[in-house]
């Protein structure tokens, strides 16, 4: 089990926001985390990245990467893991890039921070860009000059360039229209099959989860009510909340 979360609790002072007893993502596996917005999904991402404190939340429990406990690690060590081992992409791609910097700037700097030389970093990012079918020249453009789809694919390219093993995808396709959505999903499948990446795919859109994920966990008010292989959950939901969610989604057919 590459990423294993057990007994995770995230709270703001007295109020607890996330209470997950067990969630795991194996290598070359996409696990879906489904739930309505405000159910603590985003907080889980931040907790895994060790960034919950930047928004004033406190974290308890255990998050293991390749069997190594992350909670309690000193910031210096966590920084080494972020990007190079665990990467993240976010919901609104246009907001995910600093408007006054060229798109490639943050990636090159991160790669240099992780010990690569300038030329190595550039090659790595260019190659990753080609991997997501984008020309490396786009890296010199500003975010406002690229489309949402392009930006999301650049974000994914950054994760690939950093050779992350785990990718936390927080609603990556919600802000994109259907055609671009499909391309991004295709990319995620490739990461799983080609690069063996473990992906935690967070979304409120069960249709997308059904289409993409191997296993799915359903989250309600911060805790997981049910999890298991996608087709089992889709066809025979055990928990009433899962059933309600499924009913609220138009006919789902599952492609092989």
């Amino acid at each position: 089990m590459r990423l294993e979360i057990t007994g995770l609790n995230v709270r703001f002072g007295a109020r607890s926001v996330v209470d997950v007893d067990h969630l795991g993502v194996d290598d070359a596996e996409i696990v879906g985390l489904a739930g309505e917005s405000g159910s603590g999904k985003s907080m889980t991402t931040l907790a895994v990245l060790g960034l919950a404190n930047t928004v004033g939340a406190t974290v308890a429990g255990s998050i293991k990467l390749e069997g190594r406990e992350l909670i309690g690690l000193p910031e210096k060590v966590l920084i080494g893991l972020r990007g190079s081992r665990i990467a993240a992409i976010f919901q609104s791609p246009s907001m995910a890039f600093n408007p006054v910097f060229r798109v490639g700037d943050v990636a090159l700097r991160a790669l240099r921070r992780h010990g690569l030389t300038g030329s190595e970093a550039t090659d790595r990012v260019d190659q990753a860009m080609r991997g997501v079918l984008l020309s490396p020249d786009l890296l010199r453009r500003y975010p406002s000059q690229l489309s949402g789809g392009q930006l999301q694919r650049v974000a994914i390219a950054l994760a690939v360039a950093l050779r992350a093993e785990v990718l936390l995808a927080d609603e990556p396709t919600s802000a994109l229209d259907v055609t671009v959505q499909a391309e991004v999903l295709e990319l995620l499948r490739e990461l799983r099959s080609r690069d063996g990446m473990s992906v935690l795919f967070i979304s409120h859109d069960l249709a997308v989860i059904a289409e993409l994920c191997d296993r799915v966990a359903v989250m309600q008010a911060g805790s997981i009510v049910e999890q298991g292989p996608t087709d089992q959950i889709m066809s025979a939901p055990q928990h009433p909340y899962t059933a309600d969610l499924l009913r609220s989604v138009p006919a789902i057919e599952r492609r092989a």
Partner: protein
Amino acid sequence: MTRYIARRLALAVVVVAGVVLLTFVIAHAVPGSPAASWAGPHASPAQVAAAAKYLGLDRPLPVQIARYFAGIFTGNWGVSIHTHQSVLSNIATAAPASLELVIAALIIALAVGVPAGLVSARRPGRPADQAIRAGSILGVSMPIFWMALILQLVFAQRLHVLPVAGEYSSNLLFTNPLTKVTGFPVLDALFTGNWPMLGSTLTHLILPAVVVAAYPAGLISRMVRAQILDTVGETHVQMARALGLPERDVFGRYLMKLAWSPVSAAIALVFGYSLVNTFLVESIFDWPGLGSYAVASIGTLDTPAILGVTLFVAIAYVIANLIVDIVQAVIDPRIRLR
């Protein structure tokens, strides 16, 4: 980019025209006839009549305004009562000293304000933040004429650490005199390689510049803090952290550059404000700038000089705003591409 600058330039010209018009209104609205004040309190009736004729006071208003504008743009800003020289030439000799002081003050303000703003934004609400906020509000509430006297007494007169006043120490005039190149003593000393003079001009600049820097430093630190706290929650910040970038990059590079655009707007505003603040301080430090000239003009009811200085500072202020607009366009692609 050029279309954006052209538009800003046009606006600046309109504002300058408005400013000139406003000084015309003030000159004529104030009690006492403008001719008498233009010619001087003890001028003979003939001189007052000549001034009236020159100002065309008998002519219809639009002609007077046109004549006033023509005078301003051809360099005839009237004759200063207490120096008997043309107001514009007085301003030309006095302006470099004031500009040098304000620029030095802004440099100090940035050097102090930006880091302070960053530190207080890093951990909002914590003791460091409270202290810096209180400090910057203190800076903004400081009566700088009083602060100038206190610093001068403590550092110059009692501790003899810094020179009391003047632009540079007097005996240098005999050993290595200053040759004028740009009119700015510090630059002139630098260009002519006159190192002792350079040292002296810089040490003389410290006290007045620190005093004038109090207000802008307070403002810039609060401005930086506010801008960063406004944007610290945005997704790209989390993205940068998620890529493994340390906090000093996240704040010092990414958030800071984003904050520059609004902060530079404040710098233009505070440039104008500080230029006027030097008026209160120059007499105390024997600084031969616009401040000393304005204060002397107040004492002698020297209307042309007062209006001349007001006009000059307003125009400098409009130009500063224009410069900052251009700088913003360079920093922030969102503006440039509009």
